[in-house]
C-alpha cells in the first residue's frame, strides 16, 4: 500500500467532514424548530456513524429500494434527545445545549478541514519537483 494514493493518504478526514456536515444539518433543524410545539430534538451517535462509514467498503451496492443492505450496516439511525428540562408544549429542544453542540460540531469540522488541508499540502509538496 502506497501512502500516495488518495484513499490511503487522506485517511478518515473526508468521511469525518461529511458526517460533521450531516450532523450540522440535524442540529440546525433542531434549532430552527426550537419554538415548534411537540417537536422532538434529534441527533445521531457520531462515533458509531463514523465507524460504520469507515467500514463501508465492505458493503454491497444498493440499486433498488428493496435490496438488502450489506452485513456491516450498523443500525445507527437518528435518535431522540433526552431533554434536561421538558417543556409544557412537548418540545424537547434545549436551545443552549443545541447551540453548543452546533458550535462544537462546526469547530470539529474546521479541525478535520485543517487535517485534510495539510494532507493535500503534503501531497502537493511531494508532487512538485524541487
Amino acid at each position, binding site marked *: 500500500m502506497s501512502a500516495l494514493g488518495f484513499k490511503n493518504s487522506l485517511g478518515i478526514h473526508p468521511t469525518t*467532514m*461529511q458526517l460533521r*456536515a*450531516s450532523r*450540522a*444539518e*440535524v442540529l*440546525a*433543524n433542531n*434549532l*430552527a*424548530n*426550537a*419554538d*415548534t*410545539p411537540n*417537536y422532538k430534538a*434529534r441527533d*445521531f451517535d457520531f462515533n458509531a*456513524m463514523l465507524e460504520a*462509514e469507515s467500514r463501508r467498503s465492505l*458493503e454491497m451496492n*444498493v*440499486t*433498488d*429500494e428493496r435490496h438488502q*443492505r450489506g452485513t456491516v*450496516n450498523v443500525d445507527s*439511525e*437518528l435518535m431522540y434527545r433526552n431533554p434536561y428540562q421538558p417543556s409544557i408544549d412537548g418540545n424537547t429542544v434545549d*436551545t443552549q445545549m443545541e*447551540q453548543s453542540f*452546533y*458550535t462544537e460540531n*462546526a469547530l470539529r*469540522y*474546521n479541525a478535520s*478541514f485543517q487535517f*485534510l*488541508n495539510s494532507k*493535500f*499540502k503534503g501531497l*502537493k509538496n511531494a508532487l512538485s519537483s524541487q
Partner: protein
Amino acid sequence: MSLTNVFNIAGTGMNAQSIRLNTTASNLANAQTVSSSIDETYKARKPWFQVLEKQWDDVDRLNRKLEIRSQVGDGVKIAGIVESDAPLQKRYEPFHPMADEEGYVLYPNVNVVEEMTDMISSSRSYQMNVEMMKTAKQMLQRTLTLGQ
C-alpha cells in the same frame, strides 16, 4: 451537500420567526381596537409552527448516506395562523361611541404581557437562526479554500 441545507433550514426559521413577529406586532397594534359586537372584535392571532417535512427524492432513498438526512425535517413552516379563543374583555364604558345599548364595549383578547414576551422570544430565535447561518457560511467558505 448537507451544509447548503443548513442555509435552507435557517432561512425557514428566520421566515417563521418574522411571521411570528408580524402577528405580535398586529396584536399589539390592535390591543385597544374596540367594537360593540363579538364578531367584529379583533382576536389575538398566533402562528402555528410545524416541522417542514423533507421532500422525498428517489435518488436520496437509494443512498444510505443520505438516509439519515431524509429522516430529518427541512426546517420549520407556518401551518397557519389561528385566532385565540380566549374570552374578550367586556368593559362598561357607557360614554364610549362604540358602546352597545347596555353601555358595554368589547376589547380584544390580546394579552399585552404575553405578546411582549413572545416578541422577545421570536427576536432571539431569529438571531439564533442568523448565527447558525453565519457558522454554516464560514464552514463552507473554509471548505472552498481546500488545497490552496
